[in-house]
């Protein structure tokens, strides 16, 4: 199974004619993802072509979903228009909206989050690398790649990966793949303070997913999402979890790249998070180089 998306999931791309959107739409097509529609207002009726594949472009998400059966959107729309693009997915009743866009105003996201609190559309991100459910072909070809992650580093398997950070996710995935262990689904939830899906939501999904046997959770300084997830996992998660928390050397009060990565209170520090997470029975990797090894130690003993 995997979570959120599987290899047959049909996706659309909002902002497919933009620089960023088109580059990654092409990479998803090359990876073998079922990319069936694009949305760019005003360009409906045109066609996005790549390597012989023709993807129809629509003016609205609702039309794209209706005509192509797409249930998931990858959002590459610039920040001033991104909140609107997310709400359009909610309105169209998609199952999943994955917002890659970095730099959406906090006030926009506060309203989006409030509007979507009973939505049937799940939001991942914003400011995230996206979701990958690897395929079973060569270098995981044939998988569902939504967003900006490099597809070829993956391998289909049994480890679920959830992270706020893009490149740190790739690091963990690569550590697993090079050791011969594949992934069920990799979820980048994004580095912003207001996001649609948090660590806890994803842990619950991995816990229910029969294909996922073990989990790597990657977090960083700021907020309490990782701690909240760990406290739930202590009593409820049946599967081994390894964690890494980035930012042990970050000074308080400075935003470390991600808008959400800032030490506000005493429980925001990497040391405090690691301590609480370890108390909840999760294996904590001290070094980012040991994320896969730390998991294998508790999983394959």
């Amino acid at each position, binding site marked *: 199974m995997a979570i959120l998306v599987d290899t047959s999931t049909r996706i659309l791309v909002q902002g497919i004619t933009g620089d960023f959107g088109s580059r990654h739409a092409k990479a998803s097509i090359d990876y073998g993802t079922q990319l069936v529609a694009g949305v760019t207002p005003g360009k409906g009726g045109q066609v996005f072509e790549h390597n012989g594949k023709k993807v129809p472009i629509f003016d609205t998400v609702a039309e794209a979903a209706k005509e192509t059966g797409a249930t998931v959107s990858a959002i590459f729309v610039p920040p*001033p228009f991104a909140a609107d693009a997310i709400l359009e997915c909610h309105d169209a009743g998609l199952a999943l909206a994955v917002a890659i866009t970095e730099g959406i105003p906090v006030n926009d996201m506060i309203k989006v989050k409030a509007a979507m609190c009973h939505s049937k559309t799940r939001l991942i991100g914003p400011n995230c690398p996206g979701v990958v459910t690897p395929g079973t072909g060569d270098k995981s070809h044939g998988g569902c790649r939504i967003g900006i992650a490099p597809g070829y580093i993956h391998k289909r398997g049994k480890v679920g990966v959830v992270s706020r950070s893009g490149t740190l996710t790739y*690091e963990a995935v690569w550590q697993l793949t090079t050791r011969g262990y594949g992934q069920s689904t990799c979820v980048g939830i994004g580095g912003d303070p207001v996001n649609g899906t948090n660590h806890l939501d994803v842990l619950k999904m991995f816990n229910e997913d029969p294909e996922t046997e073990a989990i790597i959770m*990657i977090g960083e300084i700021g907020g309490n999402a990782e701690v909240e997830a760990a406290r739930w996992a202590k009593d409820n998660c049946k599967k081994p979890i390894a964690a890494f928390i980035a*930012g042990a*050397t970050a000074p308080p009060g400075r935003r470390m*790249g991600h808008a959400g990565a800032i030490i506000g209170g005493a429980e925001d520090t990497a040391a405090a998070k690691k301590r609480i997470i370890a108390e909840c029975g999760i294996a904590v990797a001290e*070094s*980012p*180089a040991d994320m896969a090894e730390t998991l294998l130690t508790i999983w394959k003993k």
Partner: protein
Amino acid sequence: MNIHEYQAKQLFDKFGVATPKGIVAATAAEAGAAAREIGGPGLVVKAQIHAGGRGKGTFKNGFKGGVHVIDSAEQAQEIAGKMLGQTLVTHQTGADGKLVSKVLIAKSVDIAKENYFAILFDRATSRHAIIASTEGGMNIEEVAEKTPEKIVKEFIHPTLGLQAYQCRKIAAALNLRGPLLNQAVKLFTALWNLYLKSDCSLVEVNPLAVTKDGQVVALDAKFNFDDNSLYRQKDVAAMRDITEEDPREVAASEYGLNYIGLDGNIACLVNGAGLAMATMDIIKLHGGEPANFLDVGGGASKEQVAAAFKIILGDAKVKGILVNIFGGIMDCAIIAEGIVAASKETGLSLPLVVRLEGNNVEAGKKILATSGLAITSADGLTDAAKKIVAAVGKA
């Protein structure tokens, strides 16, 4: 982004937040004119720098105190003359101090009671919240820890905004009653409008004062703004004073780089914020000290890498550089070319360890190996950290 006290006052005036009258001055003559306009006695001259602790600071010319109470225009002119163009050192500025190029002349008030009032973004609830306390003028973290019952919190609905009854609740909790209650409600509402319409992430009024003549006024305020919203806050963005910021961070932002200077001697250059933090962590784990956080973003260009090298090398403490790139989509060969070009352009003589992973990595490593430069290639994160720590240790 931070703003000056006089700019905060301008925002207060624009949104109708009650605050003592103040005028900014860039010259001693302007300061005198400002004092005449406001009318004494009972005025203050305040040096405008971003750092706190101004009152107890000392100027490098020996003049003591960045905040002075005065009574006449002549005094205003004299004191401003001793502050303007001078460097003020406080416990927050570091030994280098900050150049004072403006002073604020304001009416001083007789305070009967100091309260604390802040609006901030609360990420746990994804809402804005008000935090208020009767313990004004103090460190609010300390109040929260020692006497949490003296702090009241009110969460603001994401679409309805701050309601009048919430303002009354807070005013009552601060014991602002009778004629003070309506003044407080008006001030809180104005402050909320300012906060929301300016895309703030924090407005901290400390103290929120009650004067002896029965006025509720915002005396001093600290502002933070949501960086993501600056594109639609042109007036706020124009308040940025880059002379108050780390010049390296300013230079970095011009190239779309995210740089934060730290105290160590091993510089790092990484793609992605999470991996950049993790790289700092692994340097420390192997006995080194990171000199900076530097995220070149997802699609680092040759120009960005060159700019990043120059910024890193501008820090005299740096004794070695660790480049950690997980290429992913990016072609490692292009990154390698960027590193080689930047090394040559800057005449790099410090140890440089490069860890490349991802797309076309073999070609990238070959470019580094055949560049004729003393670049050490690393396999994996641990190897990279050990090599740079060892190289800097020997230097």
